[in-house]
């Protein structure tokens, strides 16, 4: 059984939407509260590598994509979560399971204002320390 079939059967109820855009690109929408079981399941597969996460401000909420690469087949599996509460977007931190998420979570915290619950050190990574509070550069703003 290949990895995608395995994922589908194991997390049958938790997968909100499954989309295979190309043979090697898989996008899976999940509920933000399931990020820890999904993230740790994928990370603990020997062939899977955490590539990066990317956050985005969309109309429906703050969207986070976690990209995992299967280096044995070249498939990229992207977990997509949407945090609908734009005032206070919160999600569990993966940094205690995957060390490689430490920096990118800090970056998303400062650029998009996402709060990663359980992250041990959410200080600024790329913005200066005196950057104004509540001003998130990657949030979409109305042009004045």
């Amino acid at each position, binding site marked *: 059984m290949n990895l995608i079939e395995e994922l589908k059967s194991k997390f049958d109820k938790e997968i909100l939407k499954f989309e295979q855009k190309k043979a090697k690109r898989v996008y899976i929408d999940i509920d933000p509260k399931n990020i820890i079981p999904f993230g740790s399941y994928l990370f603990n597969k020997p062939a899977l590598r955490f590539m990066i996460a990317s956050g985005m401000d969309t109309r429906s909420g703050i969207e986070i994509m976690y990209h995992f690469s299967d*280096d044995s087949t*070249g498939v990229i599996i992207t977990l997509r979560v949407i945090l609908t509460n734009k005032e206070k977007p919160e999600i569990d931190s993966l940094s205690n399971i*995957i060390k490689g998420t430490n920096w990118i979570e800090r970056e998303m915290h400062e650029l998009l204002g996402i709060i990663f619950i359980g992250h041990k050190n959410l200080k600024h990574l*790329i913005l200066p320390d005196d950057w104004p509070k509540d001003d998130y550069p990657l949030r979409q703003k109305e042009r004045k």
Partner: protein
Amino acid sequence: MDKKCVIPIGPFHPLQEEPEFFRLHVDGEKVTGVDIEIGYNHRGIEKLSESKTYDQGLFLVERICGICSCSHPFAYVNAIEELAGIEIPERARYVRSLVGELERIHSHLLWLGLAGHFLGYNTVWMWSWKYRELVLDIFEKISGNRQHYGAMKVGGTRFDITGEDIGWIEKQLDELLPAVDMFKGAVMDDPVIHARTKGVGIITAQDVKDYGAVGPIARSSGVAIDVRKDDPYAAYGLVDWNIVTMNTCDVFGRAGVRILELYESIKIIKQCLAHLKTTPGPVDLNIKDIPPGEGIGRHEAPRGEVVHYVRGDKTNSPTRHKIRAPSYMNIATNEKSVIGYNVSDALIILAAADPCYCCTERIAVVDAFNRKMLMNGNDLIRKSQEKTKKLRSRKFGVSSS
């Protein structure tokens, strides 16, 4: 008496590609901790890209890095072509791979020179930079520039390589090959370099997994990952080559992987040139419109995998453009590799991640309690070079000269 000190390294130096700041906590000569800070030169390119067209964006991302200036455009065109479902002409595939591999050669030679300088082998530095010129001459001839070649374009490449140029590039590579043999001998067979680099800066395969490290760092720890093989693009699936791995997990392995990769790159370029002689066709499809959608593009840059994620609506610029450079994952491994070693080894360990770590003029050892300057960057280079000299005289009885 407590002898704990903090050594700040960075953040700026002209020889560094990316400014970064390491705060080494030392107890006497021994490194006991490291804080890493980045963001000193954050240019907001992801945000800037949202206001550029796809075509302008290529020039923008080309300027992210000066050393591997075609890596980011390479990954970006891969992402846009995935988004739009474009298949590029076969001839363009060979030109793209050729440019990508030439860049790997010059980047690895640049690193080798710097590593040699840190270890006190200034001859290695001078020679490797001398032979790097052969590659830069090729770039100047085919693109008009030594750096920032502007080769990539959505749907193909901006220039073709034809006629006399093909034979001339082959000649240049033939000239380079004996130099690579020489470097291999100089680094891989030298007992003093072995003593300085073997067992130093250990990063295990588990650390590679934990931190998501890529490129020569992963491959020197026995993790055979290479996007060119795992998810082939351009001409990498059409030519014959091998992934180079080593199992030493140390600085020696990282140097070895880079040197052996030079041979593979030359092999790829020669095959691309042979195909360019026989493959007809255009190198560009003249793409005008990009449909809405999303795509992920990857390229194996000299330092590891570059990832670009692009999402577009119906306009001709992206709504989100996420960029991840390999160093973003690799630099974080320094908190594993540098702790427990001597200050004189710290420099080469940090350099082995290939952020071309030469911010040494900025180094100063400061007494953390009374803020007194104890040592500066030149002292640190001197310390590293002295260690090599001492080892050399112990092994060969060569007096310092």
